[in-house]
């Protein structure tokens, strides 16, 4: 869902990125750097802070959580089948006596890891391809625009689902690559648009006339000036990658056994959700809370990084008015 959110939302940050060389200069008399300004704005946004806290906590829990219980995901407790949560199994057990807490942690670990990797890969690819297409235009540019159009007609969910028999039984890394391969395109299109305006700017022209190769100009002058967009995008992409992965895994088109993800847990237990709710509610709860936290952080970052964001401006205006009064 959030993939599509990106385009409209990030469009507002175009001003932020192209304006950043100006913002970076400290205001006279005050040691206020852009980084500090962004930090202060972000810290003021309570929801974003809560979201950040949740994300950090979730990653810690995913990797350290298994240490909190003496059960592992491979253990079978033959005295407890389909038991609702109680002291020994805090998330209850499933029909073969596996501890749901250990299982949920294992699923969480895989889902979060896939989300992070996919976001990093796809944002990097988007930056490179988008900037290159925008800088050189021509055939590469036409191809990019066309592929994005095509993806509107043919959802990536469908393509990966069709390809799933091919990567069944192979490493989950293939799934990461597949998800990343279809997530970069819309961002790349926004990056392309921003490159079109950036390359007309004086500092890029100066670098060009000094004889810098295009590769250096893109890496040193164009991409760093879109940092705000890329940071926001990478954040939101973690959420959308987790959603994409769980959606595919729900049908068995994503993560394959013996690996477990939140999606396979939710998919496997959705049928029995009305009779054994704990099997479904715990993995689903972790998924929803994590994606919600990512969206809050993405929203907070957007407000903090974007000088044209009306919400921040209005709040600052209100603050100065209050101070004056």
């Amino acid at each position, binding site marked *: *869902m*959030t993939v*599509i*959110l990106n*385009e*409209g939302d990030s469009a507002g940050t175009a001003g932020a990125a192209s304006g950043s060389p100006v913002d970076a200069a400290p205001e006279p008399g005050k040691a206020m750097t852009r980084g500090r300004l962004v930090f202060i704005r972000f810290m003021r946004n309570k929801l974003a802070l809560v979201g950040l806290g949740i994300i950090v906590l979730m990653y810690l829990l995913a990797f350290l959580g298994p240490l909190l219980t003496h059960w592992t995901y491979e253990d079978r407790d033959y005295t407890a089948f389909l038991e609702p949560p109680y002291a020994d199994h805090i998330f209850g057990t499933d029909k073969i006596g596996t501890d749901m807490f250990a299982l949920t942690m294992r699923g969480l670990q895989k889902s979060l890891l896939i989300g992070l990797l996919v976001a990093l890969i796809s944002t990097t690819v988007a930056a490179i391809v988008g900037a290159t297409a925008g800088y050189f235009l021509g055939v590469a540019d036409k191809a990019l625009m066309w592929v994005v*159009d*095509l993806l*509107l*007609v*043919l*959802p990536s*969910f*469908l*393509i990966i*689902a*069709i*390809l*799933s*028999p*091919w990567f069944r039984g192979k490493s989950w890394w293939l799934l990461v690559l597949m998800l990343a391969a279809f997530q970069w395109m819309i961002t790349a299109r926004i990056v392309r648009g921003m490159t079109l305006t950036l390359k007309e700017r004086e500092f890029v022209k100066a670098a060009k006339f000094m004889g810098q190769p295009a590769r250096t100009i893109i890496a040193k002058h164009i991409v760093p000036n879109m940092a705000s967009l890329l940071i926001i995008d990478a954040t939101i992409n973690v*959420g959308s990658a987790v*959603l994409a992965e*769980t*959606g595919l895994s*729900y*049908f*068995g*088109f994503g993560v394959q056994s013996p690996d477990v993800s939140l999606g396979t847990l*939710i*998919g496997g237990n*959705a049928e029995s*959700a*009305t009779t054994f*709710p704990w099997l*479904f509610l715990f993995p*689903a709860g972790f*998924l*929803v809370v994590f*994606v*919600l936290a*990512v*969206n*809050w952080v993405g929203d907070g970052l957007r407000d903090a990084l974007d000088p044209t964001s*009306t919400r921040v401006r209005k709040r600052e205006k209100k603050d100065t008015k209050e101070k004056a009064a």
Partner: protein
Amino acid sequence: MAGFLLRRLVNYVVLALVATFLAFTLASATFDPIGVLQQRNPPPPAASIEAKKRDLHLDQPIPQRFVTWMSGVVKGDFGQTIVDRPITEELGRRIGVSLRLFLLGITLGILFGVLLGVVSAIRQYKFSDYFATLFSFILLSTPVFVLGTLLKMGAQGLNDSIGSNVLIFVGEETPNFQGNWFEHLGDRLQHLIVPTLAIALGQIAYYSRYQRSSMLDVLGSDFLRTAQAKGLTRRKALMKHGLRTALIPMATLFAFGFGLLVVGGTFTERIFGWFGMGDWLVTGISAQDTNITATVTLFVAVCVLFSGWLADVLYAALDPRIRVN
């Protein structure tokens, strides 16, 4: 304007064809229907496997298979499934089931999404705005497969507390239902409510976010102030000048939104046991059936094509600048 719409239509038709070709090719390349057949116990005789290969045109190269399939499609024949049932037999019923869900979902989504967004924007930073924001954030972070199952649990709880099956969440109608036309309608409605809610809630959240921000942009504009200055009431100015302008960027979203809807519909159909196109896609991929997969892709492409084209028509209707050019 007719030229503009015609150009867009041609563009979409080409896209739909390419999308279907791509899906067909990918499916043919990855699926291994013979492998599925050979795993049967007892294994079928070699002669019948050879016959099956000929039936499925597996002896031909993939592009030729596509041409064979496509020339059938033009004549209204979508080929056979791997278990030798003509696809056309089921197609009409399944499309009906899916379209009922999609059209209701998107109508409710747009109607209430736009309403919620406009109210949020007009009453910015009031309680109702914060409430709507929180509501849509939570819904956007909840994937359809979680939301659907949660609604199912809720409906079960409601039914239990009332003591009768008011909301039915399995299937799209009671099998062998006896009754007159009116009772049939009532039965369908009972089946319809929960799945429609599952698909519409996400759409409402999605559209309301965009409508809110596009309405906020319009609220600060000069022409709205002018409209009020020349004597229009605020309500009239908002509805006639504000809303209409704020709806323009929304038109583009419909095309995006429809892809989302189709993927969401797949989950909804599976969760609530509706035998629509989404359900068929999952069955088709699981059975490694190329013809089913390609048919569903074609359906998705035509849906997105139509909604994209409709968005263009709306765009032209709402924005006089497009009509003039």
